C-alpha cells in the first residue's frame, strides 16, 4: 500500500488493527518522505533508529492485541519536549549539544501508548515567535504556496516545524505547544487542526519553559478526530507539575457525536477589528452560518477587554520568560562562552547569554527584566496581572450567560512570506496572535480548524474557544464545523 504517510491517525489506527499494514510500513513511509523534504526544514533531528525500534515494539503489541489508540502511529515531536538521549534545543544555540537524561511526561505518555517518534521538529527559539524565523536551525517553510508563486511562506510559529510536517504528510501528527497561539496559528497557516487544551490538562514537566502560567502542550493533526485521539493520550495528572489538574480524562473521540443542536455559540464583537481582510470576515460569517445550520444558536457577545490582551501578554510572558531563562548561565548545560584571561564569572554569564540567545529571545528577556525591576513592578507587572483577571472575567461572564463556545477567526491573515514582517518592528509580528492570546491569558481550551481558502489559494482557519475542562464539547463542535466546511485541500508537492 502506498502513501501510508498521508493517512490520518484514525485511519492508520484502524488499518493497523485490521492488519492491512504494519507500524513498520507506516514508519518507513514517513521516514522516506522526511528524507525527501529537506527543503521544508521541518525535522531538525531525525531519529530513524528509535522510530524503527518503537515500530517493532508496537507491531508486537498489536499482534498481542494490546494496542492503545496511538500504538504504532508515527509522529513528530516539537524540539521543546525533552526526549531522553535525543538532542533537545528549543531551537536555541544556547542548548547546543544538550541531550536530556530524562523524558518529558507528554512524550513518556505518548510512547507508553505506543506512538513512534520520527524526530524533533523545528520551532521558534524558546517558542518565542509567530513565524519560525527565530530558530537557530533556520526557517521552517510552509508546504503551501500562493498560487503559482515560489515565494517561501511561513508555516507559522512557534510550532512551525510541527505544522509544516503534518501538512506535508511527513508524519501522521505532531506535538506542539501554545503560549500565545503557537499551536493554533501555525495550524491555521497550514490547513491542519490544532488544539490547546485547558491550562493544567497536559503536564508541563520536561517541556522547556517559556511562560509557565501560559504554556500548554497539545496535538497538531490532520482532523478533529485525530486531535481527540492524540489529546486523550497526552492529558492526565502528573505529580511532577504542580499546576497539572487531577481530573479524569474523558474519551474525547467518543464525544464526537456531531450533534450540536441547541448549543449556544458566541460571536464576540471586539474581534471584528478594523482592517481585517474581507475574506477573513467572510470566513467567520460562513462558519457561524454552518454552525447555525447544524442546529446551534448564534448569539452576539461582548468581551470588552480584548484589546488589552496583547499588551497584557507582552508584560506577563516576557516577565516569566526572563525568570525561566535565568537558568541558561553556562554552568549546568548547554553553551558556555570562551573567556579571555582575567575574565570572571559575570563575564561568563553575560558572554554566554549574548552568544547563545537569539535577538528576539534577548529582547524579551530584557523587556521582562525591565517590567520586573524595582520601581516598575507595580506599574507594569502587577497592572498586567490585574488586567488579566478582567480578561478572564469577560469569558466567565459570557459562559455564565449560557454560551457554550465562542467562534472567532484563528489569524488576521493567511500565511505571509518569510521575511515579509520586519524584524525591526516586533509589534507587527505580535499582532499575529491577536485572536489567540486571550485564550492563554484566560487558561481556556481553544482549537483551530481549517474551513476555507484565501483568494491566493492558502488555507484559512477558524478558532473555537471552549469552557474550562470542556475539551470534549469543544471538539464535538469543531467536528461539526469541520464536517460542514469540508476542507480537503492539500498543498501541491514542490519540495
Amino acid at each position, binding site marked *: 500500500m502506498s502513501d501510508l504517510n498521508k493517512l490520518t491517525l484514525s485511519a492508520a489506527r484502524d488499518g493497523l488493527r485490521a492488519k492491512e499494514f504494519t507500524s513498520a510500513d507506516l514508519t518507513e513511509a514517513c521516514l522516506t518522505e522526511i528524507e525527501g523534504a529537506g527543503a521544508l526544514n521541518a525535522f531538525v533531528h531525525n531519529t530513524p533508529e528509535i522510530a524503527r525500534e518503537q515500530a517493532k515494539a508496537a507491531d508486537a503489541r498489536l499482534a498481542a492485541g494490546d494496542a492503545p489508540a496511538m500504538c504504532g502511529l508515527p509522529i513528530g515531536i516539537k524540539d521543546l519536549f525533552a526526549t531522553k538521549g535525543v538532542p533537545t534545543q528549543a531551537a536555541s544555540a544556547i542548548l547546543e549539544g544538550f541531550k536530556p537524561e530524562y523524558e518529558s511526561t507528554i512524550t513518556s505518555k505518548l510512547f507508553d501508548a505506543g506512538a513512534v517518534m520520527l524526530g524533533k521538529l523545528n520551532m521558534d527559539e524558546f517558542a518565542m515567535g509567530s513565524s519560525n524565523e527565530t530558530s537557530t536551525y533556520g526557517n521552517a517553510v510552509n508546504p503551501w504556496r500562493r498560487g503559482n508563486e515560489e515565494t517561501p511562506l511561513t508555516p507559522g510559529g512557534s510550532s512551525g516545524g510541527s505544522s509544516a510536517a503534518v501538512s506535508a504528510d511527513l508524519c501522521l501528527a505532531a506535538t506542539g505547544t501554545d503560549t500565545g497561539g503557537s499551536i493554533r496559528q501555525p495550524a491555521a497557516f497550514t490547513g491542519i487542526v490544532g488544539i490547546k487544551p485547558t491550562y*493544567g490538562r497536559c503536564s508541563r514537566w520536561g517541556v522547556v519553559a517559556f511562560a509557565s502560567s501560559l504554556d500548554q502542550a497539545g496535538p497538531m493533526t490532520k482532523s478533529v478526530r485525530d486531535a481527540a485521539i492524540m489529546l486523550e493520550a497526552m492529558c492526565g495528572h502528573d505529580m511532577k507539575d*504542580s*499546576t497539572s489538574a487531577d481530573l479524569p480524562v474523558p474519551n474525547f473521540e467518543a464525544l464526537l457525536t456531531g450533534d450540536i443542536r441547541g448549543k449556544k455559540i458566541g460571536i464576540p464583537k471586539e474581534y471584528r477589528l478594523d482592517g481585517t481582510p474581507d475574506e477573513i470576515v467572510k470566513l467567520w460569517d460562513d462558519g457561524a452560518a454552518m454552525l447555525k445550520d447544524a442546529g446551534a444558536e448564534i448569539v452576539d457577545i461582548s468581551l470588552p477587554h480584548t484589546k488589552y490582551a496583547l499588551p497584557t501578554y507582552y*508584560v506577563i510572558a516576557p516577565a516569566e520568560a526572563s525568570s525561566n531563562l535565568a537558568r541558561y548561565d553556562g554552568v549546568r548545560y548547554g553553551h558556555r562562552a570562551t573567556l579571555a584571561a582575567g575574565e570572571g564569572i559575570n563575564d561568563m554569564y553575560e558572554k554566554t547569554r549574548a552568544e547563545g540567545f537569539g535577538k528576539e529571545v534577548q529582547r524579551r528577556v*530584557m523587556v521582562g527584566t525591565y517590567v520586573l525591576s524595582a520601581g516598575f513592578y507595580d506599574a507594569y507587572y502587577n497592572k498586567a496581572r490585574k488586567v488579566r483577571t*478582567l480578561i478572564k472575567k469577560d469569558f466567565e461572564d459570557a459562559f455564565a450567560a449560557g454560551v457554550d463556545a465562542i467562534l472567532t477567526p484563528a489569524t488576521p491573515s493567511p500565511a505571509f512570506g518569510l521575511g515579509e514582517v520586519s524584524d*525591526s518592528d516586533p509589534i507587527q509580528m505580535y499582532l499575529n496572535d491577536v485572536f489567540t492570546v486571550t485564550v492563554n491569558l484566560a487558561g481556556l481550551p481553544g482549537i483551530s480548524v481549517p474551513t476555507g481558502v484565501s483568494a491566493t489559494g492558502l488555507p484559512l482557519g477558524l478558532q473555537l474557544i471552549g469552557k474550562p475542562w470542556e475539551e470534549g464539547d469543544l471538539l464535538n463542535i469543531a467536528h461539526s464545523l469541520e464536517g460542514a466546511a469540508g476542507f480537503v485541500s492539500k498543498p501541491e508537492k514542490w519540495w
Partner: protein
Amino acid sequence: MSIDIDTARRVAKLARIRVEEDALPALASEFNAVLGFIEQLSEVDVEGVEPMTSVTPQRLKRRKDGVTDGNMQEKILKNAPDAREGFFAVPKVVE
C-alpha cells in the same frame, strides 16, 4: 515612559546579557516600541481588581515533605560544559 541608553545598559546588565556600547541606542529604541505598546494598559480601570495568581482556581497539590528521588550525580553533570570531581566547575568566584 521613555528608555534612554543608560537604562538600556542597566537592563542588559540585570539580565546578564552582554550588549556592546554601539548596540545600545537600537536596543533602547526597540524597548520604547514595546513599552509604548504596553502603555495602553494605563487606560484600564483596575480599581479593586485582584492581580491574577493562578489561572485555574485550584489549590496546588501537596505531598509529604520527603525525599522521592536522588542519587543521580552522574546524570546531572552529564551535560555540564565543565564538570570536575563530581562538581560543576566555574571561573574563580572568590579572590
